[in-house]
C-alpha cells in the first residue's frame, strides 16, 4: 500500500490567528483508497487543519503539496477544482432547502431553454436519489428540507454529494460527533465505502473508538501541536488513548 504516491502531503504547516497559535508544525500524508484519521481533543486544532487543506484558510507557514506539486489556494473553489471535497462539522447545508437543492448546491445542473440556462430540476432530483442509493442510502423524499433529516442522513447526503462530484480527497469533520451508536456505524460504513471507491479520506474525530476500526493512518494533535503520525500496525487502542491525552510523547 505504501508504495502508492500520496495524493496530499503537508509539511510543517502552521496557522496563527493574531497571537493565537491554532496550529504549529503539523505534517501528514493522504493516500488514495486509505483513511487518514486526525485525532485530538476539543480545541486541538483539527478544524483549523482541515480548513487549511480545503482552502478556506491559508497556512501562515509550511508546505502544501497535491500529487507532488506545491499548491496555494485562494478559495475553497480552487481546492474543489482539484477534487478536494469537505464535509464540514456544520455540514455545509442550508437546512430549509430541499435535499436535491443542497445536493447540487454550487454545481447546479443546467438545461438550455432558448437563450437561457435553466436549473435542470428533474435531472437533479433523479440523480441525487440515485447517487445516494449507490452508497446504500435511501432518502424518503428528495424534496424534503434537509433540516428535517436525521443527523446520519444529513451526513450521508454530504458524503454522496462529494463522491458524485468526483472528489479524490474527501474530508470529514467530526461526522459522528452528534450521532448515536447505530447512526455512527452507518456513517463509518459510508466512509469505508468512499475509500473503497479509491478516494483518499481524511476523517476528523475526537473519538478513538470511531477512528481505530476505519483508519489506516492516524495523525494526533494536541493544543495545536502534532503528537505524531502513526500507521495502523504501530497502534493499539490503549496507546492511542495515551497519545491523545497528551501525557505521553512519541519517541
Amino acid at each position, binding site marked *: 500500500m505504501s508504495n502508492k504516491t500520496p495524493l496530499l502531503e503537508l509539511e510543517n504547516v502552521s496557522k496563527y490567528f493574531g497571537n493565537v497559535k491554532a496550529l504549529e508544525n503539523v505534517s501528514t500524508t493522504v493516500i488514495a483508497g486509505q483513511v487518514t484519521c486526525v485525532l485530538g481533543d476539543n480545541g486541538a486544532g483539527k478544524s483549523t487543519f482541515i480548513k487549511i487543506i*480545503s482552502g*478556506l484558510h491559508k497556512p501562515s507557514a509550511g508546505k502544501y503539496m497535491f500529487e507532488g506539486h506545491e499548491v496555494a489556494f485562494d478559495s*475553497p*473553489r480552487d481546492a*474543489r477544482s482539484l477534487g478536494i471535497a*469537505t464535509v*464540514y462539522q*456544520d*455540514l*455545509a*447545508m*442550508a*437546512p*430549509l*432547502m430541499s435535499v436535491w*437543492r443542497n445536493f*447540487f*448546491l*454550487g*454545481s*447546479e445542473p*443546467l438545461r438550455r431553454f432558448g437563450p*437561457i*440556462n*435553466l*436549473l435542470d*430540476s428533474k435531472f437533479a432530483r433523479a440523480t441525487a436519489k440515485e447517487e445516494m442509493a449507490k452508497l446504500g442510502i435511501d432518502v*424518503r*423524499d428528495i424534496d*424534503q*428540507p434537509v*433540516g*428535517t433529516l436525521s443527523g446520519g442522513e444529513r451526513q450521508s447526503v454530504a458524503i454522496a454529494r462529494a463522491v458524485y462530484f468526483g472528489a479524490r480527497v474527501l474530508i470529514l469533520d467530526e461526522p459522528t460527533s452528534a450521532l448515536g451508536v447505530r447512526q455512527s456505524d452507518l456513517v463509518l460504513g459510508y466512509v469505508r465505502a468512499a475509500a473503497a471507491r479509491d478516494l483518499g479520506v481524511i476523517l476528523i474525530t475526537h473519538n478513538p473508538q470511531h477512528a481505530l476500526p476505519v483508519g489506516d493512518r492516524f495523525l494526533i494533535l494536541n493544543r495545536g501541536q502534532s503528537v505524531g503520525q502513526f500507521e495502523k500496525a504501530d497502534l493499539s487502542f490503549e496507546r492511542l488513548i495515551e497519545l491523545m491525552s497528551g501525557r505521553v510523547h512519541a519517541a
Partner: protein
Amino acid sequence: MSEVDGLTPTKTGDERITYRGPIKKLLVSPEIGALIGAVVVWAFFWGNGDKFGTAGSTANFLDVAAPLGIMAVAVSLLMIGGEFDLSAGVMTGASGVTIALMAKYFTDGGISLWVCIPAAFLLAGCVGWWNGFLVNRTGLPSFIVTLGSFFVIKGANLVFSKRINSLVNVSDVDKAHGYKFFKAVLGGENKFGDMKYRDIIFIVGGILFAVLMILGFIEQSLVRKQSISASDLIVSLIGVAGATFGVMTLHRTDSVNGNTVAGVVGLIGTVLAIVFYARARFEKREKIAGGFPPAAKTLLLLGILGTAVASLTGQLFDRNEERVMLQWMPTNLRLAVAILGGAFPLAMTIRSFMRGDIERRGRVISLLILRLPIICLVSLTGVVSLFQLTTVQAVRAVIITVAGTGAATCFYQARRAAGKASTKWFVNIGLLMTAAFLVVAFALRADSSAPRFRGGIFTSLLLGATLVLATTLVEASHRARTKADVSADQLGRRMILLGLIIGGIALAVRLVLSDGVFRMSVFWWMFFTMVGAFVLTKTKYGNWIFAVGGNKDAARATGVPADKVKTALFVATSLLGAFVGAMILMRLNSVQAQQGDGQEFEYIIAAVVGGNLMTGGYGSVVGASLGALIMAISKNGIPAAQWNQDGRFIFLGAVLLVSVLVNNYVRKKANEQR
C-alpha cells in the same frame, strides 16, 4: 425495468412517505398564506361598503400596489438572501430627484431624459454596490449599514432639491427631451374603452377555474376505479348544465325571486355534478359505524353560536353609514366594556402563547381563532362606539366576517373530528354546516337594500354551502388515497395549474382592465414578479440566493460566490428602487424630496406578509407580491369604508402580526407531516 415483460409498471412513490394530499402540499408552499389573506382582505372590504371594489377603486389600489409590489419583489429576494435594505425607500426618491434635477438644470435648459434616467440607474447601482460591499467587508448587520445609507440619501435628496431648485418639490419634467417615450413606457395609461365581454369572460373563466380546481383536488385525493360508470357520468353532466344555468342567472338577476330559484337549481346542479362525477370515477369506501364523537361537541356549539351571531348582527344593526352608535350607554361604561372586552381575552391568549411550546402554540392559535369573535365583538363595539372611529355598517361587517369565518372553522374542525369516528355524524355535521351557510346567506340578504349584499355575498355564501355539501357527500362515500399515484397526481396537478391559469386570466381581465384602463405600472409589477419568481425557483442563481440566506458558510464552502450574490441582490434592490422612482416621476410629472421615506418598512412588511422568513433562506417572490397587494387593498379599503384614516396603521400592524403567526404555524405544521 419491467417494461421488458410488456407490463405497464404501476408507478408508486416510496411507501414510507405518508402520501400528502393536495391540500397539505398546498400548505407547504410559502405563498399560500398571502394568497388566502389577499382574498379575505379584499372580500372583507368589499362587504364593508359600496365604495370599495368598484372599477375606479380597483384601479386605485392596483396603482398603489404596483410600486410597492415591484419593491417587494426585490426586498423579498434580498430577504431570502439574508439581508435587509433600509435605503430602498429613499432610493425611489433619490432617483426621482436626480432625474428631475438633471432634466431641468443640467446645462442650460436641461438635458435629455435619455441621459438622466440611465444616470439615475448608474447612481442607484453604485449605492447598491456600496451597501453590498460594506456588508460583506465589515460583516455588520445590513440593518445598520443600510440605515447609514438611508440617512445619507435622505439628506442628499433634501439638500440638492433645495439648493438647486429652492423647493423640496421638483416639477415640470414634461418639458425635457424624451419625455413622451418614457411617459408611455413607465407611467402610461392605455385606454381600452369599456370591454363588452368583460363580465362573460370573468364568469366563464371563474366557472372553469372552479371546475378544474375541484377535479384536480379530487383526482389527487381519491382512488381511481377500473372503469368509468356511464350512467353516473350522465347524471353528473346534467348537474353541470344546472349549475351553469344557476350561476349565470344569479349573476344577472337582482330580484329576490329570481335569486331563490336560480340558487336552488345552481346548488342542486353543482352538488349532483360533483357527487356523481366522483361516483363514476372513484372507488367507494366502507362506512364507519361509530357514535357521536365527544371531541366535536364544543366545536359544534361554537359553530352554531357563531352562525347565530353573524345572522343576528345582520338583522340587529341599522345599515346606515352613521358614526353614532350605542349612544344610550354612558361614556364610562363604554370605555370599561372596550378595555375589558379587548384586553382580557387578548392578555390570556398572549400569556398562554408566551409559555407554550410548539404543540401548545398550535392549540393556542386555534383558541385564538375561537376567541376572536368574542374579542372583536365586545372590544370593537366598545372602542368604536367610544371614539366613533367608523360607521355602523363597517362594525357590522367586522362582526359578521369574524363570527362567520369562526363558525365555519369550528364546523370544519368538528366535521373532521367526526370523520374519524362515525360516517353518520360526519354527514350530519356536514349538513348542519351547509344549513349554517344558508341561514347566514338568507339573513344577510333579507336585511340588505344594497345590491352587493343581495347579489355577490348571497351568491358566494350559496356557493360555499354547495361546496360544503358536495365535499361532505364525496368524502363520506369514497376512499381517500393514502399512496402516491404518479399519473393521477400529475393529471391532478395539471388540472389545477390549468385552472389557476384560466382563473388568473379571468381575474386579470376583470381587475386590470377595469375602467377600461390598463396602466403600465401594473404591467411592470407583473413583469418583475414573474422574472423574480423565475430566477428564484428555476435558475441556479435562485439556488444560490436560498443558500446564502439559509447558511452563508455552507454556500461559500460549496463554492457559491456568496459575497457576489449578496452584492448583486443589493444592486438589484437599488436598481428597482430607481426604476420605481422613475415610474412615479413619469406618472406624476413631479417629485417630492421626501418621497419613499419610511416606505422601506412597508416593503419589508409586504415581504413578510408574503411568507418570507426574516432570518433568510426561505420565501417566495409571488408571496411578497401578494403581500403588497394586501397592503394596497387595506390602504384603499380603509378610507372607502369610512374608517378613521389613522386607524390604518393599527390595521397594518394587526395584519403583519397575524400573518407572521399564521405563516410560522403553517410552515411548522406542514414540515411535521413529513
